[in-house]
């Protein structure tokens, strides 16, 4: 647990350092994510403590957004001035983005699944959809 947590922090730190040096338009933790992913692919194995620690943190991922979310209270005035365009844009655009991503992906997978036999497990009931 302690070792796995340290490992996550080390990857984040390396990610931050790389971003500082290269001025990539991406946050350090995202680079850390890519590096850890590459490491796991190269090693071809995942140690149990790392798996447990990662699952433990990700299970409560939504908790981690609460402190930033409470920051809404600072912006009440600005949001209430333009509440209509903001609310409509956020709601409609988010629903559209979900729908478009999912529909495009589904359409492309149907084409791709003709070559793979395993796709039967996930596309079983799709004939009538």
């Amino acid at each position, binding site marked *: 647990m302690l070792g796995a947590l340290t490992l996550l922090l080390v990857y984040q730190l390396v990610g931050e350092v790389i971003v500082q040096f290269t001025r990539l338009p991406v946050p350090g933790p995202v680079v850390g994510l890519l590096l850890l992913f590459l490491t796991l692919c190269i090693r071809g194995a995942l140690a149990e403590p790392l798996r447990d620690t990662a699952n433990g943190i990700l299970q409560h991922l939504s908790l981690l*957004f609460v402190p930033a979310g409470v920051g809404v209270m600072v912006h009440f005035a600005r949001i209430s001035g333009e509440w209509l365009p903001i609310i*409509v844009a*956020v709601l409609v655009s988010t629903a559209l983005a979900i729908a478009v991503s999912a529909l495009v992906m589904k359409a492309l997978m149907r084409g791709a699944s003709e070559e793979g036999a395993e796709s039967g497990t996930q596309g079983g009931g799709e004939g009538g959809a």
Partner: protein
Amino acid sequence: MSPRIADVWVYLSASPLLGLTLTLVAYQAAYWIYQRANFNPLLNPVLLAIAMLVTALTLTGTPYATYFDGAQFVHFLLGPATVALAVPLYLQFERLKKLALPLAISLIAGSVTAIGSAVGIAWLLGAADATMLSLAPKSVTAPIAMGIAEKLGGIPSLTAVLVIMTGVSGAMMAKFVLDALRITDHGVRGFAVGIAAHGIGTARAFQVSEQAGAFAGLGMGLNGLVTAMLMPLLLWLWRSF
């Protein structure tokens, strides 16, 4: 008695302990309600916890900065949690490899839709320029979105709030949108939510299944990269009309 209570309050309100404890208590209360309601997405725990905390801080007249002194310890864990997304991603790697092309194309379609429709709707409804530019990167995880908004001429701190609103609304709406479209595959569902609603959508996806969560984490990470690269191009197109 009352002066002593006031003294205790003065002491506690100056210490990070209160903000941290309140965050954990509010979240667990919110999660308990969410669990009791059979994980109904409309009772999103992030939204409930934020509502409780904003109410408590407003009633006690506590400034956000004081609260954040304590809450920052929770906020800090976003970094290692992002790195930890590599683990479910690795576990889904076999499936991801097979789906590389569909993933890439739907990523770009979803990313352009998220940016274009947000800016377009805000423009139609007469939003100010700075508001539109702050809305443009709303589907991307907060640190990337704030960086983009700053470069475009938006307001980074407003973007942070819009990002949270987007994440919460995406986590709440996803089930209904995807059910209506008869999308059953957990990989597809997760990926779409990650693209549109970043980490908060990803958190919701993990509550549904590990596969949905892994694909959502991938969608979130990739959309961060794609939006950062697409945005200058889209802005140039927009300006040249």
